[in-house]
């Protein structure tokens, strides 16, 4: 029996038309899967309890790791039971927002937004890496955050667990409103965790910026959700997809309102996935602790935009122009972010820009109809970018917060840093797209498809250029920080101090901080312990093995492809016509060579400039080039002045308006009120003796006035009626 039979309207649209094209059989899933969000929720609750009880141990970390591991195990069950056979299950949790209302036609409708899970292969793919990586990164954080054991530790793991709950709602919700619940929920956790070092003004501002910019996107998403409800009379995926399938079958002209839905959803996706023009919050979000950057701002939350587009792919496919926009936004974001990444000195920020850039690749993939490529890139990127961030975090942790690549050199061969160096190398070759790595395959799928789809050649070229730049800036970091002569200057977060007491932001925009030399000599970097190293090994191995998902199992054309083809994101049409990469042949084949060569060229340039051409830790051959190109380098370093332009265009005008409004409110609106209130005073100068100020006198006056007005009103009425 279907769960929905008792809700009239749930399948009424299907029953009425008799169409079931494109609709998969929805089965009622096992309540077991509710544990996926419930276990982290329990962990969050416990961490809150630990905070209240003043627990000063690593309990919060172990609670979180255990809960997340449990969540991962249940997700694995979901994989074998639901995703692997290509099924779709709906698990009903509880009723969230339900209300009956009278529709325009007079019939009674039910607004339903329940806490229910929609589990198909797309959901499971996302949840596998979300819960898996969250478990690993929580383990990493147990060591990384160990200086804060106490209230801060509880707070950190509370928000960390809550994040996984919200992410589960976002990915697993069976309706758009539950997606919105998760959407804002991850935004909240991101806010709390970016602002984790809450005494630092820069962290507080970054947190606020992230939340507000996300809210701009959320506004679009919210309007899109309301428009979808207006159109489909439901927010539940199965009903929306069923009606979209009908629309697709009927063909014909679509109302503009339905065409607007994908664009509005896209606004939300842009905000969450840090695409042009709403990308500037993500680099600032690096103020948060590094495990947070790895999990939330690289591997999982920022891919929510990709998930939204993939989940709502049928609606996007109804309006193909919207996908063109997705592709262009993605391609341009990839390029712009990569150019900024080239010019940064803070390694964490370089990784942040590279995340923005890689997310651009994913959007490009969605736009050129390879949802498989986009999803695969999300998957591989989650592994290698998490590895890269966690390596940067290990360095930051070991060198007292040092992140400036001019002040670190040769870390690979320092004692105790071998694993970090190797993991970093694995991450770098994936990000750079060195042949036969997972990152190489997933990026290739997107690049090749850009050249296959008619009209996207220009974007393909942009993407190829970006791939080259990516290889360059990735290995710029690796060559400078991990190879070369051994040298380091510690950052300003020396242990033994309360980390919170440093109010200045470190290494911001590569501004050199002055440290006296003696200070540096007393400092001993401390290499990572077992937790960090274990996690790095697992992630590095995972990054390498992810490549296998491109090839195996052979019958479905790769693991990810198999998963996507049974989900709502499968709708991508295949291009039947013969495409050619500038006359060289099938782009899918040629791209292997072209992108491989481009990656190698990028790496070679990085080697020539930053390893072969390095003189000291802080200087290299690149400096001379930077001198030659003049201000362009500085412009790129200043992020092409995006922040300043936004301030000038939006923030300051809005602030000026606010001040004007406040003055207007005080002087004009309230002034008129006072004027109005004062006028009887002059009239009543003659009756001043009655104004004794006593409340009882006013009350008498009130009663008198009341009587007077009643009489007047009555007279008016009487005159009107006679």
């Amino acid at each position, binding site marked *: 029996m279907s769960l929905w039979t008792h809700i*009239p309207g749930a399948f009424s649209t299907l029953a009425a038309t008799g169409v079931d094209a494109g609709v998969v059989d929805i089965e009622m899933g096992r309540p077991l899967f509710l544990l996926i969000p419930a276990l982290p929720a329990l962990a969050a609750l416990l961490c809150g309890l630990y905070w209240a009880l003043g627990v000063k141990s690593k309990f919060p970390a172990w609670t979180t790791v255990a809960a997340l591991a449990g969540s991962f195990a249940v997700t694995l069950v979901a994989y074998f039971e639901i995703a692997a056979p290509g099924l779709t299950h709906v698990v009903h949790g509880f009723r969230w927002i339900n209300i009956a*209302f009278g*529709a325009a036609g007079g019939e009674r409708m039910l607004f339903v937004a329940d806490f229910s899970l929609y589990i198909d292969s797309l959901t499971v793919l996302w949840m596998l890496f979300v819960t898996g990586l969250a478990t690993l990164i929580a383990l990493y954080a147990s060591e990384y955050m160990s200086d804060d054991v106490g209230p801060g530790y509880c707070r950190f793991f509370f928000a960390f667990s809550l994040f996984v709950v919200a992410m589960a709602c976002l990915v697993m919700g069976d309706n758009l409103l539950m997606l919105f619940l998760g959407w804002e929920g991850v935004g909240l956790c991101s806010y709390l965790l970016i602002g984790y070092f809450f005494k630092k003004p820069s962290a507080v501002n970054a947190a606020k910026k992230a939340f507000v910019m996300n809210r701009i996107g959320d506004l679009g998403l919210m309007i899109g959700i309301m428009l979808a409800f207006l159109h489909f*009379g439901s927010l539940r995926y199965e009903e929306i997809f069923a009606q979209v399938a009908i629309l697709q079958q009927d063909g014909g002209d679509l109302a503009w309102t339905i065409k607007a839905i994908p664009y509005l959803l896209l606004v939300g996706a842009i905000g969450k996935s840090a695409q042009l023009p709403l990308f500037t919050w993500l680099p600032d979000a690096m103020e948060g602790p590094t495990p947070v950057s790895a999990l939330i701002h690289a591997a999982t939350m920022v891919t929510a935009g990709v998930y939204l587009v993939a989940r709502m792919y049928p609606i996007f496919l109804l309006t193909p122009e919207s996908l063109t926009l997705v592709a262009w936004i993605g391609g341009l974001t990839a390029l712009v972010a990569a150019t900024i990444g080239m010019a940064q000195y803070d390694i964490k920020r370089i990784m942040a820009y590279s995340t923005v850039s890689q997310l651009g690749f994913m959007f490009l993939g969605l736009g050129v109809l390879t949802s498989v490529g986009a999803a695969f890139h999300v998957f591989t990127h989650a592994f290698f970018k998490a590895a890269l961030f966690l390596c940067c975090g290990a360095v930051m942790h070991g060198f007292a917060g040092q992140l400036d690549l001019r002040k670190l050199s040769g870390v690979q061969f320092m004692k105790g840093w071998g694993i970090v160096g190797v993991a970093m190398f694995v991450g770098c070759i994936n990000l750079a797209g060195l042949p036969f790595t997972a990152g190489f395959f997933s990026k290739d799928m997107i690049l090749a498809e850009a050249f296959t789809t008619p009209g996207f050649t220009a974007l393909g070229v942009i993407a190829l250029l970006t791939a080259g730049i990516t290889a360059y800036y990735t290995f710029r970091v690796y060559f400078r920080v991990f190879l070369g002569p051994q040298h380091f200057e510690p950052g300003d977060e020396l242990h033994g101090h309360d980390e919170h007491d440093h109010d200045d932001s470190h290494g911001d925009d590569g501004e050199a901080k002055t440290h006296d030399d003696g200070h540096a000599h007393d400092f001993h970097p401390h290499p990572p312990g077992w937790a960090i190293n274990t996690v790095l090994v697992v992630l590095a191995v995972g990054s390498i093995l992810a490549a296998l998902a491109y090839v195996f199992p052979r019958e479905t054309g790769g693991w990810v492809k198999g998963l996507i083809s049974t989900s709502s994101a499968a709708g991508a049409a295949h291009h039947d016509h013969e495409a050619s990469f500038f006359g060289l042949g099938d782009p899918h084949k040629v791209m292997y060579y072209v992108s491989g060569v481009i990656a190698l060229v990028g790496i070679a340039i990085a080697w020539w400039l930053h390893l072969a051409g390095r003189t000291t830790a802080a200087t290299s051959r690149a400096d001379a080039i930077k001198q030659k190109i003049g201000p362009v380098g500085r412009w790129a370093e200043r992020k092409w002045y995006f922040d300043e332009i936004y301030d000038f265009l939006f923030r300051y005008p809005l602030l000026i308006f606010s001040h004007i409004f406040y003055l207007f409110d005080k002087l004009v609106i309230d002034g008129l009120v006072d004027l109005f*209130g004062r006028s009887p005073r002059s009239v009543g100068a003659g009756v001043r003796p009655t104004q004794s100020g006593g409340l009882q006198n006013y009350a008498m006056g009130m009663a008198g006035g009341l009587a007077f007005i009643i009489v007047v009103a009555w007279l008016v009425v009487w005159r009107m009626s006679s």
Partner: protein
Amino acid sequence: MTLLMLILIPLLGAAVIAFSPERQAKWLCLAWSLIALGAAVYAAFTFNWMERTGAFQFSASWTWIESLGIELSLGADSVSMLLILLTALLAPICALASFTAVQERQKLYYSTMLVLFAAMTGVFAARDLIFFYLCFEFTLAPMYVLISQWGSSNRKAAATKFFLYTFTGSIIALAGLVYIAWKWTQIGDGWSFAISDLEIAASQMSMFEQGWVLLALMVGFAVKVPLFPVHTWLPLAHTEAPTAGSVILAGVLLKLGTYAIYRFVLPFTPLAIQEYAPLIAVLAIIGIIYTGLICWVQRDVKKLVAYSSVSHLGFCVLGLMALNTIGAAGSVMYMVNHGLSTGALFLCIGMMYERYHTRSLDEVGGLASRMPVWAFFMVFFTLASVGLPGLNGFVGEFMCLLGTFQSGAVDFPGGTTGPLGPWYAIAAASGMIIAAIYLLYMVGRIVFGPLREPSDHHAHPVLPTDLNLREIGILAPLAVLCLGLGVYPTPVLRSLEAPINRVGVIAGFHDIEAPGSDETAPAHTLVLVPEEAWP
């Protein structure tokens, strides 16, 4: 009888306090308000929340002035009951919140407060227009006393302005109400002020008459809400009022305005409201954006929250003006939610003020490192206020917006009849961003950032640095309710369907006749109502 008890208990408490020693006043106030809360909770349990016709329960009436047909008539539907519960809940909270803050003339203070609560309960329980109006006006005097006697430095001016402004408005509203009563004398048998009679009388009014009545009612009720541009009394009154006064003001008094719009404007002027709802909606939207931006440049944190009330209540009025079920239900939810979250924000600010004697964002900041428990609550209620899904604020806000969005979209499966449309909702939804900007600005300064304390700051003689158990006990129930209403609002929403449908039928925006034929039984029900009580 039940409702009469709910009104009489606080009044009795006030009398008892008046004849008791000064130092017992606060304990007596707490005890009596807890009794009142207990009675209200008992009433809630005996109340049939799933009454499918929207009929009034606990109805009772006593003849008062026979020649004019005035009766002391009481009754409640689930909308009234929710607001009565909110009022009853805030009573002990306000009493507890005043324990250390109010040191002088405690007898007068606590008995005034209880009288105020009785009057507010009376407003929500009244089924007779004169009794309603009496209670509606009678809330002014105790509030005037609270502000003018226990307020801050500029309290006299604020209290006077509050009193005269809202009083002037209500007088005009009374003229409109009396006109309808007169209309009843034309069709009925002598005078009657029973609201159910007047609903019939109102339907006999021409469009022209309804227009004037609407204007009269809206002038009065808009001041109370307050709606732009008649809102300027509120920031002043809030800033000067003592903490409990602000909580009552934000929590319940403002809702008298929106409740009156729901209860009287919609059913009494069905034709005119269809015509003028867009105009009122525009004022509400201007209020949302304009006062929202004003919040952003406030230096006084209490004034910031006060202005944010104006902005938030804009959503509430907008939802009502959508003239459909989701909008109206969202608006009622918003009334309750705003009372909880903004009331709690005022409580948090009051606790901070007791310790630092300043509300200026320039003088205090970064208190999370000094008062972590306080910071937790402050951030929590701010998030509820921002409208974060999962907390209560979102439910009301989303439904107000959705109701507005679907209003008038008659060609769509998810649309309803109504005078508004998507553009209104889109304009109002920009308030989501503005709310995030100003509320996070507030939290970013006062909770987070480097610690800033006034240079002449001394530790409070009684209170600890962080919150004590009493203060946690004040905030925790509110936080639990915020979370509960955010996660599981469905029972409340479903209980609102029938009364709203009743108003909808009178106001002519619904063509569903019998909601009794509702077969959509929810699978899971709240313990509040036995399973059999659901349809």
